[in-house]
């Protein structure tokens, strides 16, 4: 269960404070996957991070008894001069995974990330694809009740993407997701509850379809656009 109580968040801008959402109260029962939608800069990632206990609101609290992950596929915690294995060991350490369990996790990471011997090379020598594969492998190798996903389901090549989707489908049986994405099919497939962050603040819907509908209201219709362009071509 994740409960939001009087949640208020604003950002400082040169033209005064910009309020993202104000006095939000909501309870998300266990077993619900949450999708967050909104335009760029609406505060989607901030909301995700507040719900995950990484960022903090101006006022209010997030109350939860779940074990919530770090943002999936996040590579900013890596130390470049340490090897992939050492970085993975560190992540295990702060999550209280030592000894035999840790070895199992490391094997899983190495296996999933498919970086082979590079696992024992410093992370700064990695290509960006290898880096994100390692990060993603780490995310799925540590078990949580709830995973945070911030637009990263598209790392790596087609083969790796497919593998990620498989793993996420597998994870969905035992864990929940809070997802920020712009890809509607992905949200439709993975989410039960929708949160729309618009100009009026935050709105919560019992189904993600309603949120998607609201999000798409402001969009120009693709067909109309095409007709316009055709008309312009004719005029010219």
């Amino acid at each position, binding site marked *: 269960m994740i409960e939001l109580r009087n949640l208020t968040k604003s950002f400082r801008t040169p033209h005064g404070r910009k309020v993202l959402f104000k006095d939000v109260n909501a309870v998300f029962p266990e077993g619900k996957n949450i999708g967050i939608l909104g335009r760029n800069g609406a505060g989607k990632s901030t909301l995700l991070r507040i719900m995950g206990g990484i960022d903090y609101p101006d006022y209010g609290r997030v109350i939860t008894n779940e074990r919530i992950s770090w943002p999936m596929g996040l590579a900013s*915690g890596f130390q470049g001069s340490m090897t992939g294995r050492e970085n993975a060991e560190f992540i295990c350490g702060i999550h209280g995974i030592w000894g035999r369990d840790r070895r199992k996790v490391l094997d899983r990471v190495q296996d999933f990330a498919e970086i082979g011997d590079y696992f024992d090379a410093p992370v700064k020598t990695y290509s960006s694809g290898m880096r994100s594969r390692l990060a993603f492998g780490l995310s799925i190798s540590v078990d949580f009740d709830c995973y945070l996903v911030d637009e990263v389901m598209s790392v790596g090549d087609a083969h790796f993407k497919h593998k990620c989707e498989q793993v996420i489908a597998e994870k969905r049986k035992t864990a929940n997701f809070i997802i920020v994405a712009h890809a509607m099919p992905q949200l439709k497939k993975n989410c039960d509850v929708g949160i729309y962050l618009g100009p009026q603040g935050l709105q919560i819907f019992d189904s993600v379809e309603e949120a998607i509908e609201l999000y798409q209201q402001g969009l120009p219709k693709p067909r109309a656009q095409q007709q316009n362009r055709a008309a312009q071509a004719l005029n010219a």
Partner: protein
Amino acid sequence: MGPTAQRTAWQIQCDVIHALLVREMKTRFGKWKLGYAWVLLEPAMHIMVLATIFSFLGREFYPGIPTVLFMLAGIAPFLFFTHSFSKSLAAVESNRGLFNYRQLRPFDAVVTRVLLEFAIYLFSLVALLGILAWFGIAATFNDFLLLVAVNILYLCFCLGLSLALCVAGAKYPEAAKMGPMIQRPLYFMSGVFFSLEQIPEQYHPYLAWNPLLHVIELTREGLFASYHGMFANLPYLAFSSLAMLGFGLLVYRASWRDLVRSQ
């Protein structure tokens, strides 16, 4: 393998600090040739330079104590102070990426750095004393319990100071520029490499406010039987250390969310 379901707050704290310690060790010593030897080489070189200069002057600082030992007992604690000072000013900025893990907050980064510096300081002090003794430079040892007490208090002092400084360094990045400006005068006012007794007596009451001076004089008293610091005052050190620890914890508690929060 999930995070163990029922970890107590204390267990989480220990896990995080343990993992961070390993990480700091690897990043600090991994990149240089000679790696861990630098723990000893830095204070050793520092002392060598000063010792050569002063042996040319041909002075003995304190009767019965070899000059090198006298300086070692001042420089080693002072290096611990400067290191935790500058490390904690940068602690928030250099660990920003790690705050994406919800159990890791600036407190852990600061505590880890101070603990590591403390361990390095104790190790280098003991090792260098041992090496010098092996070469025949030694003085009669005095009081082990006093040393233990002084060092625990000193750790409290640096921890409190570092917690306050990590907040200052994150809120006012200009504070980093102030670092050397504060450290350099302290270097001279703490009796690191000379005895403050030579300073005119009317200034002594003001000098005695400096807790570092007490740390260094008490360390020397603990190490050398023939040393008697004229400022050394254990109750004052205890009071100022605990006050500093309390101050640091309060400052941190009042504003730690602002260090992590997006603004």
